[in-house]
């Protein structure tokens, strides 16, 4: 048995019928500070440890910060799965990852496209997964921009994940719990998940799963201490 079969993320993948899928765009929702970034990076680390490539885009942290975040979660996951030879694995994780940091005020999709092209042509870097942290901000984003991200996912042949904030109050939610500004872009969003803080853990819920009528329920929760996923 492959050690990664033990990872709780496999359960999530099965619930999503094999995952988000290449060329697709997915969103993780939660209130600020619940752990969206951690959860996104946990998915990225899982990919990286299995030898896939990840591009991480941030408009809110420095390269060093993001890197420290990955190091921390790589260590936590290695402990959870009992991985050996961490020195080599760490090196492989770094080889497979590229962090792009932009000034939020001057970030555009075109700039990102340009960097993606540079990385592909000059560094031979073709990511399987892209994490976008801090951008887009759905409440201020036009439909064509979201479509732009979907197009980019297809051009890159990668899955793109991003986070979106739930506010404490005064936000209109539909009956699944999806805020209006997000439901607005629904046709371009393949998967929507949410992180809900409970008394001693954080519950993961799937609000939308590809084209299925009723989203599946998963018994997964996030450990608020180690920021790793576990079975419930």
């Amino acid at each position: 048995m492959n050690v990664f079969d033990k990872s709780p993320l496999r359960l999530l993948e099965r619930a999503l019928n094999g995952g988000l899928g290449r060329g697709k765009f997915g969103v993780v929702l939660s209130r600020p500070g619940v752990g969206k970034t951690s959860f996104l990076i946990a998915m990225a680390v899982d990919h990286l440890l299995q030898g896939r490539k990840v591009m991480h885009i941030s408009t809110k942290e420095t390269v060093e910060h993001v890197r420290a975040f990955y190091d921390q979660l790589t260590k936590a996951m290695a402990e959870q799965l009992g991985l050996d030879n961490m020195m080599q694995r760490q090196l492989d994780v770094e080889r497979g990852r590229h962090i792009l940091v932009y000034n939020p005020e001057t970030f555009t999709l075109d700039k990102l496209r340009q960097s993606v092209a540079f990385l592909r042509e000059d560094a031979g870097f073709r990511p399987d997964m892209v994490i976008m942290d801090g951008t887009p901000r759905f409440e201020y984003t036009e439909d064509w921009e979201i479509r732009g991200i979907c197009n980019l996912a297809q051009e890159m042949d990668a899955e793109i994940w991003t986070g979106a904030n739930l506010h404490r109050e005064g936000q209109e939610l539909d009956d699944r719990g999806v805020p209006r500004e997000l439901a607005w872009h629904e046709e371009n969003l393949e998967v929507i998940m949410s992180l809900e803080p409970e008394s001693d853990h954080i519950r993961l819920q799937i609000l939308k799963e590809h084209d299925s009528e009723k989203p599946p329920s998963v018994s997964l929760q996030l450990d608020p201490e180690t920021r790793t996923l576990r079975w419930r």
Partner: protein
Amino acid sequence: MMTDLSKVRNIGISAHIDSGKTTLTERILFYTGRIRAIHEVRGKDGVGATMDSMELERERGITIQSAATNCSWDDHNINIIDTPGHVDFTIEVERALRVLDGAVLVLCSVAGVQSQSITVDRQMKRYKVPRVAFVNKCDRSGANPMRVTDQLREKLSHNAVMMQLPLGLEAEHDGVIDLVRMQAASFEGDNGETINWSDIPDHLLVEAEARREVMLDAVSMFSDELMEAILEETVTEDMIHEAVRRGVLSNELTPVFLGSAYKNRGVQLLLDAVVRYLPCPTDIENEAIEFERGGEEIGFVLSNNDEDELVAHAFKLEDGSYGQLTYVRIYQGVLHKGTDIINTRTGKKVKVGRLGRMHADQMEDIESAGAGDIIALFGIDCASGDTFTAGRRISLTSMHVPEPVVSLAIEPADNKAQDKMSKALHRFTREDPTFRASVDPESGDTIIRGMGELHLEVYIERMKREFGAEVTTGAPKVAYRETMTNPVAFNYVHRKQTGGSGQYAKVIGRIEPSDDGQFHFETKVTGGNIPTEYISACQKGFAMCMGEGAFIGAPVQGLKVVLEDGDSHAVDSSDMAFQTACRMAFRDVYAGGNPVVLEPLMMVSVEGPGELQGEVLKTLMQRRGIIVGTTEDEGFVRIDAHVPLSEMFGYANVLRSATAGKAEFTMEFARYAPAPREVAEELRKDYLDQRAKGK
């Protein structure tokens, strides 16, 4: 002789190579009356700025050695420690930072915050040095001090706040608007020595008022009094100064000043700021360690009091026209001429024959110096980093000294050079703990080791110039390490019976990779199966094994040994027997732990215009670089990558030609990481060949 310590400032001037640090220092010395004429750094007059006392530095236009120089301003005594600007000389920078209480961060108003400013800033943060910023070169075309202030906030996360506005920029740059006084200052006279205060010109008044509000807003966070006064509109200049000073001392505020040292604009106001806002020695807490007789180490805070027993720290050795100089900072007590002091590292007593206060290469004899002062001792035999006391065994918290990562074989050109070379090496190794020299027992070659290619190059050049030693050099070599990647168990009996008393020791346990790259030893032996008196012999035995691994003969790093059980014999067991048993046990199981070769990875940051991103990436990828990240802002891109040191030789030239000189880079040791198989196999083969030859 009590000096008022509140009127002492020990400061550094820290900056990127071309931001005009030496020119600024020169101007400071001029305005404080220390020098009579102004020279230029890369001077046409052939004299050169006074602070760069070494010829080599003059030629390269960079400052390598940190000389301390003294001057006075507004009744205050300022000691300026000239900190080197190149990252290959990190230990010099860090040593200077240790004795500073505050610093002026010089930035170029055109180039702004560059990758090197980031490295230097990181070092200052590590030592918690309070700073004021000076945005220099406001007379250059493209000058934009507001942008530089924004970069300080964004790239270096400083709470930077402009205390001044420029009175014209580029060729029009005439002076500054002081947002505390709300007046304009222009600088007149041949050398800008006369400050002319006047009302703020009408066209700048609105902006000045808006900027003052921003400044007051940021500064009032540090003073309730000021915050109230703002509401009641009763703000005084002193209230603002007091609040800024608090912000600076807590390392939470960086006030920004402007000007052009070259054009003699704004330097005097910067000096006012140094005196007003930067800490005096008693504002900073410095710690030392006292070694008790029982081997215990006790940390304590140095008092800064003249009445207490002497503690002084040698941070710089220099050999020049005055012979051997040792720069020391006194943390407490008084140092008198003619007294004896103890070097706590060697335990030797030394006599203080002569004391001096230095002004670059001119010297003033003094009788004594007290707490907080920085002075020079003459002809004292010591290494830099040593602590002097009147007798107590005290050492200043050891500074982090990195292990050298690159080596080079050198050979004297002739017999005469041999002697001179040894003299030079002897001196350099005492001046700089990251520079090492040794003789390879097999080849007989002299090997020098250091922190980078440039680091070693500079010493080779100094050998030639200062000591007249011509040497030929081999190719630079990387310092490899090795380690085991899998845990292994050992169970070894050492038994020897050859007449007389025999040897017997048995050790059982395991060896595993450690998390932090260090050697650890742990014992879980119970019931006295290995008597306690032999445990330290076991530790020593394993520690000795770390010096040379059996995979490629490199030092072994990052292993943890857990001793679990063993056996001893009442007569035949000894320290020696256990030590041998451990060494044999290690040798026995090492190959089973899947040993690998580790190579030093450097953190390389390249910064350049965004459109050259691809070119830069190519140069890094060709060097087996692991791209960590890319930061894009305002058309500039910084690429951070981990690159094996072995691939970085000659990179400066490659980068220059790939980017037409538009990109620059800095490099710092990052960590050791497994080397690729081809590299490992080659090293292994060489090692086995060497061994076969040796036997």
